[in-house]
C-alpha cells in the first residue's frame, strides 16, 4: 500500500487497564499493527474481551494506548477527530430527550457545521437510511433497528471519511440485523468511506467485510487476516454461495480455537 492510500495506520499498539500488580490489571491488547486502506471495510472479530472494541476506541482517539501509535489520514491520533472520524456504538447512544432530527443536528453542532448546511445534510442522511418519516420521533418511540439506523444517519451526516462501528447491530434480532447489513453494504457501495466494523457475528463479518481481521484471545492481537473478494453492494444471494460458506467456515475454525483458549483462561482465573 502506498502511504497516500492508507487511511488508518496502527503501529505496535498495546493497551492495558490499571497498573501491573493491581488486582484489576488487565492486558487488553498486545502489539497490534495494521494498515487499513481508503475506502476499505474491515471487520474485527474475536472472542469477547480480546480488545477489539478497545482498539476501535484507540483508533477514534477516545482512549490513549499504553504503547504504540495510530495515524489517521497521515495525522497522529491524540484525541477525538470529529472531522475525520465518526462512531456508531452498540448501545443506543442517541440523546433520549431529542428527536431523531435534533439528534442528527446536534452531532453537526458539536462538529462545528454551519447552521445553513445542517438541515440539508440531515435530510440527506435520513434519506440514506430511510428514516425521513421518523425525523420528529423520539428514540423511545422507535424500534431497536430504527434507533441504530438513526445513529447511523447521525454518523453519516458528519460526512467523515472514516466510520468506526462498534457492534452496531449487536443488540438487534437476527432478521433486523440481516436487513441492516444489506442496507449498509448498498450504502457503502455509493460512498468511499473507510469503515472499521467490530462484530462477533461470523456471518455479518463475511457478508460486509473486504477483509476480516481475526483476533486471538486476551490479551488480543491480530491472528490472521482473511480477504473477502466480492464487490459491494453485496446481494442476499451471496450468503448462500459456496464462497461465503467457505470463508465463514474458515473464520469459524480460527475463532473456535481462540474461544476455547479464552474459556480455559477464565477457568484458570476462577481457581487461583
Amino acid at each position, binding site marked *: 500500500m502506498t502511504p497516500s492510500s492508507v487511511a488508518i495506520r496502527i503501529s505496535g499498539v498495546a493497551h492495558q487497564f490499571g497498573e501491573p500488580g493491581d*488486582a484489576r490489571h488487565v492486558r487488553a491488547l498486545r502489539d497490534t499493527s495494521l494498515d487499513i486502506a481508503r475506502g476499505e471495510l474491515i471487520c474485527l472479530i474475536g472472542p469477547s474481551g480480546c480488545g477489539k472494541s478497545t482498539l476501535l476506541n484507540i483508533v477514534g482517539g477516545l482512549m490513549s494506548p499504553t504503547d504504540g501509535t495510530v495515524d489517521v489520514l497521515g495525522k497522529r491520533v491524540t484525541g477525538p477527530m470529529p472531522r475525520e472520524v465518526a462512531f456508531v456504538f452498540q448501545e443506543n447512544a442517541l440523546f433520549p430527550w431529542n428527536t431523531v432530527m435534533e439528534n442528527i443536528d446536534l452531532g453537526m453542532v458539536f462538529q462545528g457545521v454551519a447552521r445553513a448546511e445542517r438541515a440539508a445534510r440531515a435530510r440527506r442522511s435520513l434519506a440514506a437510511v430511510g428514516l425521513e418519516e421518523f425525523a420528529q420521533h423520539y428514540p423511545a418511540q422507535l424500534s431497536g433497528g430504527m434507533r441504530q439506523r438513526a445513529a447511523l444517519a447521525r454518523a453519516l451526516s458528519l460526512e467523515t471519511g472514516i466510520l468506526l462501528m462498534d457492534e452496531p447491530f449487536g443488540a438487534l434480532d437476527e432478521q433486523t440485523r440481516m436487513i441492516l447489513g444489506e442496507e449498509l453494504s448498498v450504502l457503502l457501495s455509493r460512498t468511499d468511506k473507510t469503515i472499521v466494523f467490530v462484530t462477533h457475528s461470523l456471518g455479518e463479518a463475511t457478508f460486509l467485510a473486504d477483509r476480516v481481521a481475526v483476533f486471538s484471545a486476551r490479551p488480543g492481537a491480530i491472528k490472521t487476516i482473511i480477504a473477502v473478494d466480492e464487490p459491494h453492494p453485496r446481494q442476499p444471494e451471496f450468503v448462500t454461495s459456496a464462497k461465503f460458506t467457505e470463508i465463514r467456515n474458515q473464520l469459524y475454525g480460527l475463532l473456535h480455537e481462540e474461544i476455547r483458549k479464552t474459556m480455559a483462561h477464565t477457568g484458570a482465573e476462577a481457581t487461583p
Partner: protein
Amino acid sequence: MRPAGNEGRLASRAVQAAFVVALVVLWYLGATRWGVNPLLLPNPVAVLGDFWAILISGEFIDDLRVTLGELAAAFAIAASLGTVAGYLVSRSQYRIRAFEPLFAAVYAIPIILFLPLYVLLFGLGPASKIALGATIGFFPIALSTVAGFGYVDKVLLTAARSMGASDYQLFRYALLPAALPIMLTGMRMGFTIALLSIIGSETIASLAGLGHRIVQLAEGMEMARMFAYIIFVVAIAAILNALVSALEARGKHP
C-alpha cells in the same frame, strides 16, 4: 487504580474535616474577636461547657422523657393503624384504586397546618403532640403497606398456591416477605417525620419537651445553653434515626 482511589478518599475526608474545623474556627473568631453580638452567636467554648453541664447534671432527663414518650405513643398509633388500614386497602385492586389516591392526596398536604386544631382539641400537653405525630406518621406507613402488599408479584402467589399453600402459609411465606422491605421503609419515614413534627409542635405550642426547652432558652436569651440544647437534640435525633435505619436494614436482610 486502587491506590489512587484510596488517596482520593483520604483527600475527601481531609476536605470534610477541614470544612468542619473551619466552621468551628470561624464561629470562635466571630464570637470572640470580631465582636458578633453574643446574643446572636455565643462563644463555642461556653456552649461546650453548657453542653457538658447538661449531660453531667442530667437535667435533660425530664424533657427527653416527655419527647420520647410522645414519640413512642405517636409511632405506636401510626404504625398499628397505618399497617391495619394499609393491609385492608391492599386486599383488592378495587380498594387500592379507591383509597390509595386519597391517602396520597392527604399525604401531600403539610399536616403541620392542623397543629392549631389539635391544640384546640387536645390542649397544650402531650396529647396534641401524640395526635399530630400519629397523623403525620400514619400516611407513609399506610401507603407503603398498600404498596408492599398490593403489588406482590402474581407469579409468586400462583406458584405458592399450586404447591398447596394454605391462606396462612401464603401470608407467612409469600406475602409478608415480599411486603416487609417496603413496609419497613415506610415505617422509617413515618418515624422520622413523626419525630420532626413532635419537636416542631413542642417548639410552637407546648408546656414541656425538648423543643419547648429550646424555645424557653431562646426567650430567656440564654444563648450558650440554647445552642447546647440544640446540639443535644440534633444528636438525639441523629442517634434515633441511625437506630431506626439500622433496624430497617436488619429487617430487610435478616
